[in-house]
Every structure is written in structure tokens, then in C-alpha cells.
């Protein structure tokens, strides 16, 4: 059974508007990491909101873990689908950091909520703030708290909207490790992001959205080296992909040191 299945999904916000999703068909397996990219207004967030039933398709079918989203409440779907939206200020409301994490745990009747909250705060380096108000944290920390609060109830699918915004180099590395180990536990991660360099390093499957349609679907090194697709979707090549394209390399390098080795593979350097 797949984790997420979109079958010819059409959706529009009102009858005066154009469809925000047009005939979207895609299947995402358990344990997959998927990067969702595309210009603003291409339908990425609309797509994400279908995964936990916040939006239900006008035409077509969305199945999550085999269940038709039309038959389920948002709350029941959210037990298995943790969605974290872009702006932390749209969700932080508790008096303390640990209560913020407990909110979801209690809503979903998770056992030993106190213990679980403590553990997840520790994993995210936020334990020392547990008695502080969430709004006193820095921008990056607020974002991590939001992600932690969803990881806490241990959903099967995690959907993150622009998770790298406001995160420094170190936090991005931690986030990358977190997502990789998440998927190694057989869990699915969907990342809506503009951060091409981050996605390149993460090496996920990529869905390119443009004007409500899926323009491309494939491994990051195939999709992100296709200049035509990226141009149509208002994206930019990550630098390592651009380098590979311009030097005519078949397999683009994943890291700068790999690229350096490849540059020097040519014989005859005066070393």
C-alpha cells in the first residue's frame, strides 16, 4: 500500500477562479522523501492541504494510507499526517515550550505525553527552553519547535512547508539528518521548498508544480539538471547541477569535494 495517492485530482477555491490543481496524479510510497518545488501560486500548498484533508478534491480521489480523505475528518487524518506550515506565528499559542508540544500529543491521545515531549525537545536542542514562552525563542528556534511538535505525535507522513527558512547552516544540516533518518524508519517526508541547494544535498524525489499541474516528477539529479523544466517553473539550477550541465558531466556531483575530484580527474594537471 502506498502512503499517498492522488488520482486525477482537480481543485479550485471558488467557481470564479481557475483550478489550483489540475488533473494531478501521483503516487508516493512509504519511506519516500519528496521535494515539492515550483513558483509561488503553482499549487504546492494546495497539494499539501489535500494530504490531511484540509481540502478535499472537487474531482478525483486522494487516498492517504489507503483511506479516502473524503471519508475522514482532518483530525483523524492528521494523526497520521503531520503538516507544519510556513509561519510559526500561525500556530504557537501556549504559555511554555513544552505545553506547545503537549498540545498535539493530548489531541491525539498519545501515551506518556510528558515523557515524549521531553524526549523530542531534547532531540531538537530545545530542552533548556521548556519552561519559556515559545514567543521568546529566536525565529529559527520557533520553526524547529513547530517541527518538533509534529514529530512528537509520531505521524507516518510529515509535510513541511519551507522548513529551511530562517535556519542557519548548522540547523539545516541537522534538519537534513533528521529527514534522512525519518525516512529510514519507513516514514514519508514531503518538503515544500524553494531552497534548491538544500534539496540538492538531500537528494529526494522531486515534484515540479507549475500552474496547478505536475510538470515533472523524478530524481533530483534528473529534474534539477533539466534547464527547460526549471525555467518553465521559475526555478534555478543548484550550482553543482549547473556545473555538471556546463561541463557536460553525465552524473552530477553531490558535494563540492566530489566536484573538485571530478575536475582534477582530467590527466596532465601540473601537480
Amino acid at each position, binding site marked *: 500500500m502506498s502512503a499517498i495517492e492522488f488520482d486525477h485530482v482537480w481543485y479550485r477555491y471558488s467557481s470564479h477562479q481557475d483550478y489550483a490543481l489540475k488533473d494531478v496524479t501521483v503516487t508516493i510510497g512509504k519511506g519516500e522523501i519528496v521535494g515539492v518545488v515550483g513558483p509561488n501560486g503553482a499549487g504546492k500548498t494546495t497539494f499539501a*492541504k489535500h494530504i*490531511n484533508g*484540509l481540502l478535499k478534491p472537487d474531482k478525483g480521489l486522494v487516498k492517504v494510507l489507503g483511506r479516502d480523505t473524503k471519508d475522514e*475528518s*482532518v*483530525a483523524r487524518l*492528521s*494523526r497520521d*499526517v*503531520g*503538516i*507544519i*506550515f510556513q*509561519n510559526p*506565528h*500561525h*500556530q*504557537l*499559542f501556549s504559555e511554555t515550550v513544552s505545553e506547545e508540544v503537549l*498540545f*498535539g500529543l493530548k*489531541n*491525539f491521545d498519545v501515551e506518556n505525553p510528558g515523557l515524549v515531549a521531553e524526549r523530542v525537545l531534547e532531540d531538537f536542542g530545545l530542552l533548556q527552553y521548556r519552561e519559556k514562552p515559545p*514567543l521568546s525563542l529566536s525565529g529559527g528556534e520557533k520553526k524547529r519547535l513547530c517541527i518538533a*511538535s*509534529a514529530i512528537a*505525535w509520531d505521524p507516518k507522513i510529515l509535510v513541511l512547508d519551507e522548513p529551511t527558512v530562517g535556519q542557519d547552516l548548522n540547523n539545516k544540516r541537522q534538519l537534513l539528518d533528521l529527514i534522512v533518518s525519518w525516512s529510514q524508519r519507513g516514514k514519508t517526508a514531503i518538503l515544500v521548498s524553494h531552497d534548491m541547494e538544500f534539496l540538492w544535498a538531500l537528494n529526494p524525489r522531486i515534484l515540479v508544480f507549475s500552474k496547478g499541474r505536475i510538470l515533472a516528477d523524478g530524481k533530483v539529479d534528473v529534474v534539477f539538471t533539466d534547464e527547460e523544466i526549471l525555467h518553465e517553473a521559475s526555478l534555478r539550477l543548484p550550482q553543482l547541477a549547473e556545473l555538471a550541465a556546463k561541463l557536460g558531466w553525465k552524473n552530477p556531483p553531490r558535494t563540492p569535494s566530489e566536484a573538485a575530484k571530478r575536475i582534477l580527474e582530467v590527466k596532465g594537471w601540473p601537480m
Partner: protein
Amino acid sequence: MDPRCRLLIALMLFAFSLAFLDLPKVVLVLALVILAGTLSKILRRLAKLQILTGILVAFILVINITIGYSVIYSLTLSLRFLSIVSSTSVFFLTTSPDELEQVLKWLRAPRDVVFAFTTAVRFVPVLMLDLSQIIAAQRSRGLEFEKGNPITRLRKLSPILVPMIVTALLRSNDLAEAIEVRGYGVSKRPTSIYELKFSKYDWSCIVIVVLATAALTFLLIY
């Protein structure tokens, strides 16, 4: 047409709507309101509004009849109400917030009040968007409004209200900075890129409105 001219027409219609209480006159005024609506090409939106008001009007009608007023008198009252609402709508449906701001300025309303008013109108849709995103975010964390008794339901408002207040405060903080940086209040006599100017057309319009008012007053009263 100059927004001040529209304001004048709307005021005239509004005054007539208030002034009379017998059926033929009320019908005549309502017809005039609808004519104004047709001329300003807002008839459709006006009709929509009238349907909404119509429900309320029907309600007034029924109540009036049940408490013993005559059918004609009740009908008059209802139509009068409809005409009052529609006449003010003729102005508000044809006037953009920008023009409204210019009219208020021209009426010498205090600048801070006008600016506070227009800014509020400007940011209502933005805040509504925030609200819908907040609701989406909290529902995604398992918040359910449908469950529980009234007291637990009331407590469920805080996950919505607190972020709403915080977002609004952060936004107003940004706005306060921007107001400073964009020089609001620097000059005691701020100017405007477009000053309101009456054209020949507007003047003739005003003359017609004044004449019509006089004629109608004469006709309807005597």
C-alpha cells in the same frame, strides 16, 4: 464622475427615502434609487444586496402584519427600509476606498482618523488570510471544534485567538515602522498626487441634482 457628486446624489436619495411614509411616494423614491443603480452600472451587485436585505424586509413585513398594522402600511415601511439601505449602497458600491479617503479628506476629517480608517480597510483581507491559515494550522494539529461541551469548546478558541492576536500585533509593529520610514506626518500640510477637481460634467450633474431635489420636494410635499 467625481465621488463627491455621487455622495450628493446618494444623500439626496437617502433623504427622500427617510422623508416619506406613503406608498406611492416610497415606490417612486425606490424607483429613483434603482435608476441611479442602473446608471452607475452596479445594478447586479445592488440586486444581490437587495435580495439579502429583502430577507430582512420580509421579516419586518411579517412582524408588522402580525402585530396588527395594516398590510399597506407594513409594505410601505418595508419598502422604505429597502430604499434607505439601497441609497447608501449606491455610494459605497461605486466608490473605491481610495476615493472614499479623498472625500473624507475633502470633508476635513482629521488626517489620522482617515489614515487609520483606510489602513484598517486595507488590512482586513490580509488579516482574514492570516485567520484562515491559523485555523488550518491548528486543525492540522488535531484541534476539533465540533467536539465537547460549550466550556471546552470555548477553551478551544485560544489556539486560534492567541496566534491571531500575535500575528496582528507583529503586523502592526511592521506597519508602525513603515509609517515612520515612509515619512507619515513629516509635513503639516501633506499634498496629494490627485486633488479632487470638479469637471464641467460634475458641475452640470450637481446642478441637475439640486434642481431635481427641489422639483421632487415640491411635487411630493404639495
